[in-house]
């Protein structure tokens, strides 16, 4: 009943360290303090932004209770995805098994919340007590008119990356192309893979796509509706935005549905333009490409004009970038656009390819942060004394203790940073952080030492 790991193609997993790369994705040692997360977390990150379905966590309170509605993924419609739903496995369930409870919960949620589908997440404890989540989902589905989809992602399977891949498998096997959907391709339509609409990021991208006549079939899975996901196979192109861990999904979609894929990023002016041009090229429409080239030039000029003032503030500032996955390299170019030098960059959850790309973009003297624990973080701040830190929310309050300007770019943030408008937002927020008068107060001695008082 555990997820069949061989089926997941983990053999070609991106965790083999390449020459020159640090050992990324290395197994965390007990007691080492690596501060990473688990496979369940990885699966929920990918699937939980699907807005009009119920996400039911079959586990004790630690899995759902501590984590529901805690990411910044936003919806333009249904808010059902934000509801924390869990079977809340209790002592008696551990002893007698939780299958009956799970089935009853699925049926009750179907009635109470009228979801388009129910995703059921297995966890460490439910797997350990031998609950057959697949079987229960199948049984429940027979009594309902909606799909009930098991996600076998107990935390002990490994890191977040593995959970991402499991989620990709689930989408491929159970969602995309399922149900009574049309098969023919929609011209000039794309899927954005690994875009979770954090803080409404996607709404900064869609207007540009629409202007060019490109249709967004669905994001996987930001602001995604279940029915749109089912028809994701009708898109003409997959654009992989974040999370190399969903490469398995785009590869399989290419084989099964003949959808080619490209990689891209919507963080920063350069990457946004490049991605739009790549999309137009891949869609094989000369007219679209011509229009796109003109359009991105215009948008770049507009955007650069607006951010010029911010750039003056930020130019030559020394930054430490402490983030993970694809964000490592996409952020490097965003910061470079603003004239910010990167002293060191972190690589949590990044693949060797992410790493190599980042390395290529960074100054050769820039350091790669290998120790991603709090201790490693503090050490690098103390060594480098940066002007600002750009990192995920996890390190936010730690960074504040170092009295260094800090910008949160991860899922906890409130402001969208994607696309051209996102770049403006990003530059504005970063300038506000750097210019804030509070850092001066934080660094001022008080009271002054007596000798200094005498001098004045």
């Amino acid at each position, binding site marked *: 009943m555990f997820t069949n790991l061989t089926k997941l193609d983990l053999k070609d997993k991106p965790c083999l360290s390449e020459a020159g790369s640090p050992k990324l994705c290395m197994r965390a040692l007990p007691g080492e303090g690596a501060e990473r997360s688990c496979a369940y977390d990885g699966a929920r990150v990918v699937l939980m932004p699907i807005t009009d379905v119920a996400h039911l966590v079959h586990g004790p309170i630690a899995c759902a209770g501590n984590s529901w509605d805690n990411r910044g993924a936003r919806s333009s419609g249904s808010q059902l995805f934000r509801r924390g739903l869990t079977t809340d496995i209790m002592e008696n369930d551990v002893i007698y098994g939780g299958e009956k409870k799970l089935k009853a919960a699925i049926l009750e949620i179907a009635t109470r919340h009228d979801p388009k589908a129910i995703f059921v997440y297995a966890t460490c404890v439910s*797997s350990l007590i031998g609950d057959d989540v697949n079987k229960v989902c199948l049984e429940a589905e027979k009594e309902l008119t909606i799909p009930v989809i098991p996600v076998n992602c107990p935390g002990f399977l490994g890191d977040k990356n593995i959970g991402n891949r499991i989620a990709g498998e689930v989408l491929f096997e159970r969602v995309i192309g399922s149900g009574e959907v049309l098969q023919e391709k929609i011209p000039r339509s794309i899927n954005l893979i690994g875009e979770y609409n954090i803080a409404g990021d996607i709404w900064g991208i869609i207007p540009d796509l629409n202007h060019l006549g490109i249709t967004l079939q669905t994001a996987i899975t930001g602001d995604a509706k279940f029915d749109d996901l089912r028809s994701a196979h009708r898109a003409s192109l997959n654009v992989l935005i974040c999370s190399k861990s969903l490469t398995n999904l785009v590869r399989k979609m290419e084989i099964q549905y003949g959808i080619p894929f490209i990689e891209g990023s919507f963080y920063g002016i350069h990457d946004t333009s490049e991605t739009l041009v790549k999309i137009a090229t891949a869609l094989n429409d000369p007219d679209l490409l011509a229009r796109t080239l003109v359009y991105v030039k215009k948008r770049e000029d507009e955007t650069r004009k607006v951010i010029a003032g911010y750039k003056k503030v930020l130019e030559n500032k020394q930054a430490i970038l402490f983030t993970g996955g694809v964000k490592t390299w996409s952020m490097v170019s965003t910061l470079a656009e603003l004239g910010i030098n990167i002293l060191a960059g972190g690589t949590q959850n990044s693949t060797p390819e992410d790493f190599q790309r980042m390395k290529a973009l960074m100054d050769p003297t820039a350091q790669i942060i290998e120790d991603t624990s709090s201790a490693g973080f503090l050490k690098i701040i103390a060594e480098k004394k940066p002007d600002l830190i750009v990192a995920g929310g996890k390190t*936010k309050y730690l960074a504040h203790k170092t009295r260094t300007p800090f910008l949160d770019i991860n899922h906890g943030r409130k402001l969208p940073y994607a696309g051209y408008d996102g770049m403006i937002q990003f530059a504005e927020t970063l300038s506000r952080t750097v210019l804030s008068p509070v850092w001066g107060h934080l660094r001022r001695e008080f009271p002054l030492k007596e000798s200094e008082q005498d001098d004045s």
Partner: protein
Amino acid sequence: MTHSRHYQGNPQKNSPALGATLAYLGVNGLLALLHGSQGCSSFIRLQLSRHYKEPIPLNSTALLEDSVIFGGWEHLKKGISVAADKYKPQIIGVMSSGLTETYGDDMVSALASLRLERPDLNNMPVVLASTPDYIGSMQEGYQRTVEALVTTLAGHQIKTAGQFDAQSIANSNEDPALTIALLPGCHLTPGDVDELKELLMEFGFKPITVPDLSISLDGHAELEAAPVVQGGTLLEDFQRLPKCRACLSFGLSMEKAGDILKNTYQIPHFNFPSLTGLTATDTFILTLAKLSGRAVPERILRQRSRLLDTLADFHDRLGGLKIAVALEMDLLYSLASSLVEVGAEITVALAASQAGIHRLSLPISIEVGDLETLEERAGQSTLIIANSNGRQAAGLLKLPHLRAGLPVFDRAGYPQKRWIGYEGTQQFLFDTLNSVS
């Protein structure tokens, strides 16, 4: 029981291991080690961090599939020794998880075995708290951990004399008749604990607070962020616990920890289920007066007098409140009973777990329930009091929502709130009234 349902919808519960983390975060020099998979600790760090706006040091034994097959016993030993070597903490505090409790790792024998293999770690105190995710909520995890702390560390003999500094020697020469052990429950904020200590000092007492979040999670800039807890109860303070004049515990959940001190060291123990509200504070202040043999200080009487005046000024508005409350039990009881005594009506009272449900009572029955239940029942109320996750219910019902409990991530300054004592009660009533106006 409300549970005709087989699921929790919008749970208000947090995991017991989160409560354990909180208790450990109030002990100076301690490294907290969660025996579980990496997600367990990751979610706790995120949840506590967005509540306190503080870095949360929490380590993990990072269990993977092989340990599920072969058991995590060796992982725990390895985790303790790696953490001890790498971070050199004064104390290691371990808590278990649903994963490790399900396959039954014996933490006691793992520690005993480690001590045989690593005699150099013999002087390192290791606290073991059993906090399976599937029993209780944050309050139970915190409770079990405070009990484990008191049991393991009270009277602890520090073996290396070098660790004594001048301050602790001075402390140990203090008159034990003035030293009082305080055991605050997890319903008290760092601000509350600070206030509590100040009240004790008004009577001339020297409090030892276990755990002491008021000097670790109070959000101060001087904190040198580190993998071990800074601030909080000192190991030397634990050593002095057996000689305390009395032990005062706060919240019914802390009663057992207080009884451990009472039964082991024959210290008088008084439990106060609540410190919010006029009568609850009266009881507490009278106990302090009696223990100290002093009259109630003028400043405190003045605070009481101000509270009385507030009650008179706002009695009509307070009497018109219909409040739906969903909180962990000790906080639920503290806040709700202080509202009941000023004439407000509690329309719904939902506790996160069973703990204390048969011993604490309100005019309406307290039931165990989630925030979906709150949403279903709070329709006729004028105010919701719940943690920030109650925002979905409040939004749907278009009701004002006073944030309390944990997590509170969308309001500034909750961990600094003081809602205990006469002044704190007055502030709580103001906050309540201002959230409905």
